[in-house]
């Protein structure tokens, strides 16, 4: 990693300060855990049922419970919005011409923006996991019948599962990045991205569903619940798609005739 890339990344990171995309990560990370928390406070039985049999892996159950809504809707939609918002910072502020008239290689511009998106995704996962933990802990302070979740956390499980979800999100980030870099009009990448998410959900049982990366998080969730899905090597497909999309995106970006 060269110093020019690090400086470029630092500049890109500064650009998202106070932007809606950075708020979206914060809100998106805590949204599902917050809803879960409210449910546990209003319907404590749901949380108590997880406490009943520790052998059933309390944290694992809670993790699965929280990922349900996240995997199907919130995460794919969040990716569509956050990626589009990040590239929109340049379009909205006439920033492309200043950026392309600066002494940075196109490679550093393209990959530093992508790196910012991936770090933001990582941030979202960290916040989401903190939120999952808090959604189980906080109710015990308000309801004496709910025990404090004193169980050992299987960090290996959390890391492995989060890592897999992260990899599965990569092609969607890269695809949305390609689309968002091409269009100045915010509605086009957002509309296309959301159409892909909804299309993916509709086609979940389709035998060629592995062609639609926006359905991967939902597919992975279904599989992690023990159900059969038409594709078994999701991680390999994700990495393959990611590589393909970042290379295609870079080629499209560099070949643009007008750069601001």
């Amino acid at each position: 990693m060269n110093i020019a890339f690090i400086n470029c990344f630092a500049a890109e990171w500064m650009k998202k300060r106070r932007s809606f995309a950075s708020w979206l990560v914060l809100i998106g990370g805590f949204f599902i855990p917050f809803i879960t928390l409210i449910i546990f406070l209003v319907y404590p039985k749901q949380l108590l049922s997880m406490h009943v049999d520790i052998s059933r892996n309390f944290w694992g159950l809670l993790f699965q419970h929280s990922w349900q809504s996240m995997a199907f809707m919130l995460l794919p939609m969040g990716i569509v919005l956050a990626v589009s918002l990040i590239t929109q910072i340049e379009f909205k502020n006439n920033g492309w011409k200043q950026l392309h008239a600066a002494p940075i290689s196109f490679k550093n511009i393209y990959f530093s923006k992508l790196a910012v998106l991936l770090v933001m995704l990582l941030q979202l996962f960290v916040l989401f996991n903190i939120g999952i933990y808090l959604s189980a802990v906080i109710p015990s302070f308000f309801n004496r019948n709910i025990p404090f979740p004193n169980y050992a956390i299987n960090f290996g499980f959390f890391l492995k599962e989060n890592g897999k979800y992260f990899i599965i999100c990569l092609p969607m980030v890269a695809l949305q990045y390609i689309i968002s870099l091409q269009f100045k009009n915010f509605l086009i990448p957002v509309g296309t991205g959301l159409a892909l998410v909804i299309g993916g959900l509709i086609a979940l049982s389709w035998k060629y569903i592995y062609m639609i990366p926006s359905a991967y998080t939902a597919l992975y969730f279904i599989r992690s619940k023990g159900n059969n899905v038409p594709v078994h090597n999701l991680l390999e497909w994700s990495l393959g798609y990611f590589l393909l999309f970042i290379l295609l995106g870079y080629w499209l970006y560099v070949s643009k005739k007008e750069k601001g």
Partner: protein
Amino acid sequence: MYCVETNRLSHSFSAHASVLNNINLQVPTGSIYGFLGPNGAGKTTTLRLLLGLLKKQQGDIRVFDKPMQQHRIEILRKTGSMIESPSLYSHLTATENLRLLQKIYQCPKERISQSLHTVGLADTGNKKAGQFSLGMKQRLSIAVALLHQPALLILDEPTNGLDPNGIIEIRDLLKKLNEEQGISIIISSHLLSEIEKLVTHVGIISRGNMVFQGTLKDLINKQQQASSLIIETSDTEGSKAIIRSMQLNGTVENDRIMLPIPSKEVIAILNRQLVSSGIDVYEMSPVKKDLETIFMELINH
């Protein structure tokens, strides 16, 4: 020695509409080059090509005597620019806008406050760039262009949106940068009057063609050549014969003779000749075309 030189630079956005035709731009090092032309003449397209913002189609671009395509980063490291409307991140403050560019240019942190001070924006505090007036945005864009102390400044209509005071301040600032730091400046405008007090060299572009390029002095000479002398006498035909005998070309229009303005010594001799020939001279007046008229004639030709 030219800091920017283009050779037969041509560009078109569609197959049938050529925007630039064989532009040979020559910007001497250390000059303030006024790039003039009406809206849509091709100024911004030329400047965007110089900065690599448009993919070059035909011709060559050399900046600091190096081909732009092969030395893009090296050239941009020494170039500051502002193209059309300001490029500022509206959700960030002036300092934050400069700080992120300071990271990219890897210049000293002190340059941030120095640049803001230079353009008179040192006291904007936590105000976001989006809340700035257009004039303040223009100033901040100039601060961005100056941040890394470039050797070449490319400014596309930088005084747009500035009040008369602001225009004078920016003009003084550019003059000072040129004189004290030797920065070469290309400044585009559609108004000659706006930059004639600033520039040393002028390039005039019209409908994608370069119609004039030279020093401001060359343009002033052109102005003098385009001026004429009007003579009204008691004997138009007799006067015309005397003018012809002095090898001057005069045309008659409404009993008045019009000829390209000769030197003041020749005017004195002509007057003496007419009077000594018994012709009464009623009027002998020079009609000078101003620079703006010359400019308009060049772009409308």
